[in-house]
Protein backbone atom coordinates (compact mmCIF):
# COMPACT_ATOMS: atom_id res chain seq x y z
CA UNK A 1 0.00 0.00 0.00
CA UNK A 2 2.75 2.49 0.85
CA UNK A 3 4.43 2.21 -2.60
CA UNK A 4 1.12 3.24 -4.19
CA UNK A 5 0.75 6.11 -1.75
CA UNK A 6 4.29 7.25 -2.47
CA UNK A 7 3.64 7.14 -6.21
CA UNK A 8 0.43 9.11 -5.76
CA UNK A 9 2.21 11.81 -3.77
CA UNK A 10 4.86 12.11 -6.46
CA UNK A 11 2.16 12.51 -9.08
CA UNK A 12 0.69 15.25 -6.90
CA UNK A 13 3.98 17.11 -7.13
CA UNK A 14 5.88 16.07 -4.03
CA UNK A 15 9.56 15.66 -4.86
CA UNK A 16 10.98 14.29 -1.60
CA UNK A 17 8.99 11.14 -0.98
CA UNK A 18 10.31 8.17 1.00
CA UNK A 19 8.74 4.79 1.63
CA UNK A 20 9.40 3.08 4.97
CA UNK A 21 8.69 -0.29 3.42
CA UNK A 22 8.97 -2.43 6.54
CA UNK A 23 6.24 -0.26 8.04
CA UNK A 24 4.46 -0.26 11.34
CA UNK A 25 5.13 -3.96 11.91
CA UNK A 26 8.87 -3.30 11.86
CA UNK A 27 8.63 -0.28 14.16
CA UNK A 28 6.57 -2.24 16.70
CA UNK A 29 8.85 -5.25 16.55
CA UNK A 30 11.77 -3.04 17.52
CA UNK A 31 9.92 -2.19 20.72
CA UNK A 32 9.65 1.49 19.86
CA UNK A 33 6.96 3.75 21.33
CA UNK A 34 3.67 4.34 19.59
CA UNK A 35 0.56 6.46 19.95
CA UNK A 36 -3.10 5.44 19.83
CA UNK A 37 -5.74 3.40 21.62
CA UNK A 38 -3.87 0.10 21.35
CA UNK A 39 -0.87 1.36 23.29
CA UNK A 40 -2.60 0.39 26.55
CA UNK A 41 -2.23 -3.30 25.74
CA UNK A 42 0.84 -4.56 27.63
CA UNK A 43 3.50 -5.94 25.35
CA UNK A 44 6.79 -7.73 25.71
CA UNK A 45 8.66 -4.42 25.36
CA UNK A 46 7.02 -3.20 28.57
CA UNK A 47 8.90 -5.74 30.69
CA UNK A 48 11.98 -6.05 28.55
CA UNK A 49 15.23 -6.56 30.44
CA UNK A 50 18.24 -5.28 28.59
CA UNK A 51 20.82 -6.52 31.08
CA UNK A 52 21.02 -10.16 30.00
CA UNK A 53 24.58 -11.49 29.91
CA UNK A 54 26.00 -11.57 26.39
CA UNK A 55 29.11 -13.22 25.01
CA UNK A 56 31.16 -12.98 21.85
CA UNK A 57 31.42 -16.21 19.84
CA UNK A 58 35.14 -16.46 20.43
CA UNK A 59 35.06 -15.87 24.20
CA UNK A 60 36.18 -18.71 26.47
CA UNK A 61 33.29 -20.30 28.32
CA UNK A 62 35.04 -19.79 31.66
CA UNK A 63 35.12 -16.02 31.18
CA UNK A 64 31.44 -15.97 30.27
CA UNK A 65 30.54 -18.23 33.18
CA UNK A 66 32.16 -15.81 35.61
CA UNK A 67 30.06 -12.99 34.19
CA UNK A 68 26.90 -15.05 34.46
CA UNK A 69 27.72 -15.90 38.09
CA UNK A 70 27.74 -12.19 38.91
CA UNK A 71 24.35 -11.66 37.24
CA UNK A 72 20.78 -12.59 38.15
CA UNK A 73 20.66 -14.91 35.15
CA UNK A 74 21.63 -18.52 34.65
CA UNK A 75 22.50 -18.27 30.97
CA UNK A 76 24.32 -16.13 28.43
CA UNK A 77 23.39 -15.11 24.91
CA UNK A 78 26.01 -15.29 22.20
CA UNK A 79 25.88 -12.35 19.80
CA UNK A 80 27.85 -11.24 16.75
CA UNK A 81 29.52 -7.84 16.57
CA UNK A 82 26.41 -6.29 15.03
CA UNK A 83 24.20 -7.65 17.82
CA UNK A 84 22.77 -10.55 15.85
CA UNK A 85 21.77 -13.38 18.18
CA UNK A 86 23.75 -16.51 17.40
CA UNK A 87 23.06 -18.83 20.29
CA UNK A 88 22.51 -19.46 23.96
CA UNK A 89 24.79 -20.88 26.65
CA UNK A 90 22.72 -22.72 29.21
CA UNK A 91 23.91 -23.51 32.73
CA UNK A 92 25.17 -27.00 31.81
CA UNK A 93 27.19 -25.56 28.94
CA UNK A 94 28.67 -22.90 31.20
CA UNK A 95 29.70 -25.55 33.70
CA UNK A 96 31.41 -27.74 31.10
CA UNK A 97 34.70 -27.12 29.25
CA UNK A 98 35.87 -23.74 30.54
CA UNK A 99 38.46 -23.37 27.78
CA UNK A 100 36.05 -23.98 24.92
CA UNK A 101 34.93 -21.03 22.83
CA UNK A 102 31.32 -19.98 23.28
CA UNK A 103 30.45 -20.76 19.67
CA UNK A 104 31.71 -24.33 20.06
CA UNK A 105 29.30 -25.28 22.81
CA UNK A 106 26.36 -22.90 22.43
CA UNK A 107 22.88 -23.98 21.49
CA UNK A 108 22.53 -22.37 18.06
CA UNK A 109 19.41 -20.53 16.89
CA UNK A 110 17.32 -20.31 20.07
CA UNK A 111 13.66 -19.37 19.69
CA UNK A 112 12.87 -15.69 19.87
CA UNK A 113 9.85 -13.39 20.09
CA UNK A 114 9.17 -9.84 18.93
CA UNK A 115 8.91 -6.89 21.28
CA UNK A 116 5.33 -6.10 20.27
CA UNK A 117 3.99 -9.52 21.30
CA UNK A 118 1.01 -9.04 23.63
CA UNK A 119 2.09 -9.87 27.16
CA UNK A 120 -0.90 -12.04 28.08
CA UNK A 121 -0.38 -14.24 25.05
CA UNK A 122 3.34 -14.52 25.64
CA UNK A 123 2.93 -15.31 29.34
CA UNK A 124 0.51 -18.09 28.46
CA UNK A 125 2.92 -19.48 25.90
CA UNK A 126 5.71 -19.59 28.46
CA UNK A 127 3.43 -21.10 31.10
CA UNK A 128 2.25 -23.86 28.77
CA UNK A 129 5.84 -24.74 27.86
CA UNK A 130 7.11 -24.36 31.41
CA UNK A 131 9.59 -21.73 30.34
CA UNK A 132 10.71 -18.82 32.49
CA UNK A 133 12.38 -16.63 29.91
CA UNK A 134 11.92 -15.55 26.30
CA UNK A 135 14.54 -13.89 24.14
CA UNK A 136 13.46 -10.76 22.28
CA UNK A 137 15.04 -9.76 18.99
CA UNK A 138 14.30 -7.38 16.15
CA UNK A 139 12.88 -8.86 12.94
CA UNK A 140 16.47 -8.78 11.65
CA UNK A 141 17.59 -11.02 14.53
CA UNK A 142 19.39 -8.42 16.63
CA UNK A 143 19.13 -8.96 20.35
CA UNK A 144 16.94 -6.50 22.26
CA UNK A 145 16.85 -8.30 25.60
CA UNK A 146 14.89 -10.92 27.50
CA UNK A 147 11.52 -11.08 29.19
CA UNK A 148 10.80 -13.17 32.24
CA UNK A 149 7.52 -14.87 33.04
CA UNK A 150 7.53 -13.57 36.60
CA UNK A 151 7.78 -9.99 35.34
CA UNK A 152 4.94 -10.58 32.91
CA UNK A 153 2.68 -12.06 35.54
CA UNK A 154 3.41 -9.21 37.91
CA UNK A 155 2.63 -6.70 35.17
CA UNK A 156 -0.58 -8.52 34.28
CA UNK A 157 -1.77 -8.32 37.84
CA UNK A 158 -0.51 -11.45 39.51
CA UNK A 159 -2.31 -13.89 37.27
CA UNK A 160 -0.97 -17.42 37.83
Amino acid at each position, binding site marked *: *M*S*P*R*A*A*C*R*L*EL*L*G*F*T*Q*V*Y*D*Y*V*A*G*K*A*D*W*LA*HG*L*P*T*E*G*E*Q*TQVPRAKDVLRRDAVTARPEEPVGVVAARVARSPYGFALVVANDGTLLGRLRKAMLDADQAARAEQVMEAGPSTVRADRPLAELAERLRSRRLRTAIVTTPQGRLLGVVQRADMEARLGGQP
Partner: protein
Amino acid sequence: MATRIDLAQLRELLDKGAQLVEVLPAAEYTEEHLPGAINLPLKQLDPSTAAQLDPARPVIVYCWDSL
Protein backbone atom coordinates in the same frame (compact mmCIF):
# COMPACT_ATOMS: atom_id res chain seq x y z
CA MET B 1 10.11 6.73 -7.86
CA ALA B 2 10.13 7.08 -4.08
CA THR B 3 13.23 6.08 -2.16
CA ARG B 4 12.80 2.96 -0.05
CA ILE B 5 14.19 3.44 3.43
CA ASP B 6 14.82 1.33 6.50
CA LEU B 7 14.38 2.15 10.18
CA ALA B 8 17.76 3.86 10.56
CA GLN B 9 17.11 6.09 7.57
CA LEU B 10 13.62 6.83 8.83
CA ARG B 11 15.04 8.09 12.11
CA GLU B 12 17.59 10.26 10.32
CA LEU B 13 14.93 11.84 8.17
CA LEU B 14 12.64 12.46 11.14
CA ASP B 15 15.50 14.16 12.95
CA LYS B 16 15.80 16.44 9.94
CA GLY B 17 12.12 17.38 10.08
CA ALA B 18 10.51 14.92 7.69
CA GLN B 19 6.74 14.48 7.75
CA LEU B 20 5.45 11.02 8.62
CA VAL B 21 2.29 9.72 7.00
CA GLU B 22 0.41 6.51 7.77
CA VAL B 23 -1.60 5.55 4.69
CA LEU B 24 -3.66 2.79 6.33
CA PRO B 25 -7.38 3.27 6.99
CA ALA B 26 -8.33 5.58 9.84
CA ALA B 27 -9.38 2.76 12.17
CA GLU B 28 -5.93 1.21 12.06
CA TYR B 29 -4.31 4.58 12.60
CA THR B 30 -6.53 5.21 15.60
CA GLU B 31 -5.54 1.90 17.13
CA GLU B 32 -1.83 2.55 16.87
CA HIS B 33 0.54 4.65 14.86
CA LEU B 34 4.08 5.92 14.92
CA PRO B 35 4.63 8.99 17.10
CA GLY B 36 3.91 12.18 15.25
CA ALA B 37 2.43 10.49 12.19
CA ILE B 38 -0.60 11.93 10.48
CA ASN B 39 -3.18 9.77 8.72
CA LEU B 40 -3.79 10.10 5.01
CA PRO B 41 -5.49 6.85 3.97
CA LEU B 42 -4.52 5.79 0.46
CA LYS B 43 -8.15 5.76 -0.69
CA GLN B 44 -8.49 9.39 0.33
CA LEU B 45 -5.17 10.64 -0.96
CA ASP B 46 -5.92 13.49 -3.33
CA PRO B 47 -4.87 17.12 -3.83
CA SER B 48 -7.11 18.34 -1.02
CA THR B 49 -5.95 15.88 1.65
CA ALA B 50 -2.33 16.11 0.52
CA ALA B 51 -2.55 19.86 1.06
CA GLN B 52 -1.91 19.11 4.75
CA LEU B 53 1.66 18.32 3.81
CA ASP B 54 4.46 20.80 3.29
CA PRO B 55 5.90 20.11 -0.19
CA ALA B 56 9.20 21.70 0.81
CA ARG B 57 9.91 19.01 3.42
CA PRO B 58 10.52 15.28 2.96
CA VAL B 59 7.47 13.05 3.26
CA ILE B 60 7.74 9.48 4.57
CA VAL B 61 4.85 7.12 3.96
CA TYR B 62 4.30 3.79 5.65
CA CYS B 63 1.64 1.11 5.97
CA TRP B 64 1.67 -2.14 7.95
CA ASP B 65 4.56 -3.94 6.24
CA SER B 66 6.07 -4.57 2.85
CA LEU B 67 3.47 -7.13 1.74
